[in-house]
């Protein structure tokens, strides 16, 4: 018998706590496989956020730091400045990155900090039970927007990739999704490209991954994926928003 598939060594055997149908499991695996396939084990430090993926330090099988809410890019900056040859990544959700952590992510990009951010956008606060996020779509009902998000009251959803692409210091920004096999492969390719750029000493890279939250959206996993395709992707267009490497 020959082994045709093995789980990546860059994930621990700890059982994920994620809800059924959540995309974090897929995205964790893509990040871990990218590290392994690029032979970066032993030379990688990850920074976990506050939110659903707060326990990422228990899942990624490498040196990990758990940051305060929104502060992962600042923590990653400290790590990277101390270990400039190490791959340093943050893994953050949309409440963490696009709300409380806007200063830290904008200035990490602004400094051209040589780190990679995996930004998982599911348009809602998951861990605290489904509150409105800056990324919540107009009209979307959450526990703090029970009548649907009202643009005149709390603004239109923030487009992080487009915003950070405008920051001179950012190097590579791409928005992906994991709704289809093709998109999963594209996401992995984007993650590997970002990691490659970092190891080449290029600037700040961010891969936004659109993700479902069946539990807090009140849908089953299949409905949630359909909702993502019909509502999120039109507002958050997939694709490369900036790639200085391609331009060079």
């Amino acid at each position, binding site marked *: 018998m020959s082994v045709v598939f093995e789980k990546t060594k860059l994930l621990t055997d700890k059982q994920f706590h994620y809800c059924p149908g959540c995309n974090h499991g897929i995205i964790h695996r893509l990040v871990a496989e990218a590290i392994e396939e690029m032979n970066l084990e032993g030379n990688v430090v990850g920074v976990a956020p506050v939110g659903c993926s707060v326990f990422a330090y228990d899942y990624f099988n490498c040196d990990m730091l758990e940051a305060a809410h929104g502060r992962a890019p600042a923590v990653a900056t400290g790590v990277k400045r101390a270990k400039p040859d190490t791959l340093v990544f943050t893994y953050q959700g949309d409440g963490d990155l696009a709300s409380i952590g806007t200063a830290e992510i904008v*200035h990490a990009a602004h400094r051209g900090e040589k780190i990679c951010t995996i930004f998982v956008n599911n348009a809602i606060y998951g861990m605290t039970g489904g509150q409105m996020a800056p990324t919540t779509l107009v009209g979307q009902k959450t526990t703090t927007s029970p009548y649907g998000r009202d643009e005149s009251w709390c603004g239109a959803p923030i487009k992080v990739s487009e915003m950070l692409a405008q920051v001179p210091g950012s190097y590579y920004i791409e928005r992906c999704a994991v709704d289809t096999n093709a998109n999963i492969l594209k996401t992995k390719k984007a993650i590997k490209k970002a990691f490659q750029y970092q190891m080449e000493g290029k600037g700040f890279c961010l891969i936004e991954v659109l993700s479902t939250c069946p539990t807090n959206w009140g849908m089953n996993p299949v409905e949630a994926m359909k909702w993502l395709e019909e509502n999120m992707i039109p507002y958050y267009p997939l694709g490369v928003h900036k790639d200085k490497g391609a331009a060079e």
Partner: protein
Amino acid sequence: MALTLMKGSEAIAEAAIRAGARFFFGYPITPQTEIPEYMSARMPEVGGCFLQAESEVAAINMVYGAAGTGERVITSSSSPGISLKQEGISYCAGAQLPCVILNVMRGGPGLGNIQASQGDYFQGVKGGGNGDYHLLTYAPSSVQEAIDIMMFAFEKAEKYRMPVLFLADGIIAQMMEPVEMPEMVDFKVDPEKKPWACTGWKPGDDPAKRATINSLYINTEDLAVHNDRLQAVYAEASANEQLWENYKTEDAEFVIAAFGTVARIAKSAIDELREMGVKAGLFRPISVWPFPYTHLAETVCREGVKAVLDVEVNEGQMIEDVKLAINGAKPVEFLGHCGSQFPTTEEIKNKILAMKEGK
């Protein structure tokens, strides 16, 4: 060794470098901006890193990240900026990360002013951030003492795996004094000594040595175990790390309790009082956490001591620890001002004379 005339802020910054600090993250705020300015020029000369953060919040989190690799890391700020750092300081304490934080205190609350103050005593020694934690907290009263404390601050931080806080009033940073600067310490991260740090663990290595720099313990029992561990560390530090100075207290009838530069003003008052035949003395905590309760009690709670005068540049903060130490055995009076108004020698002298007259 020759003495050099140095400004306090620059001397403290240089001492940090001599003590092995190679990473500084900070943000400008008066009256400590000379520290980041000095670091920005000096760090590149020693192969270190100076980085101006976008905020104090970011700076302390950069400290968290760099300290997580085992390096010697320092940040500095002044009172309102230290308030912003409290989140990160609590996380450093919870994650047991050694680092050094300098607070060059200015007047408060809020924006307050930019003059020297001692208004952050409570914040420094009674918490500041959330949760049950302490910082090894030192209150130097001269530039030389600040240098000397810096030379062991990182070792203490690493021994106990807890942040060290300097509570320095603005005068320490702003005045120039002749100092003796120690030799450069040769510091390198030793993964054997810091198995908790991010030093390049890989699958196949001892799983217990994979770094997880973290302050989250979601299960009740786990958090209790973690806090028990922290409290055991604090108990050990409390037993071993108390520092204080007694000045002319052997025969004193009136004992002044003061910390930082105020203690130097008190010494002048004591000398003048003694010339007038009034037996006064000074008890000066150098470590304000751990507070030298027992030593203050031994100084004061004996026959012959009539009363204690606590002098601070605030509305009375350390006085709570002074009263705890004395536990009602002697009367304790207070002299102090907020708004950065330092008490004068004359004021302290007159207060003691009034206490002697029973007024």
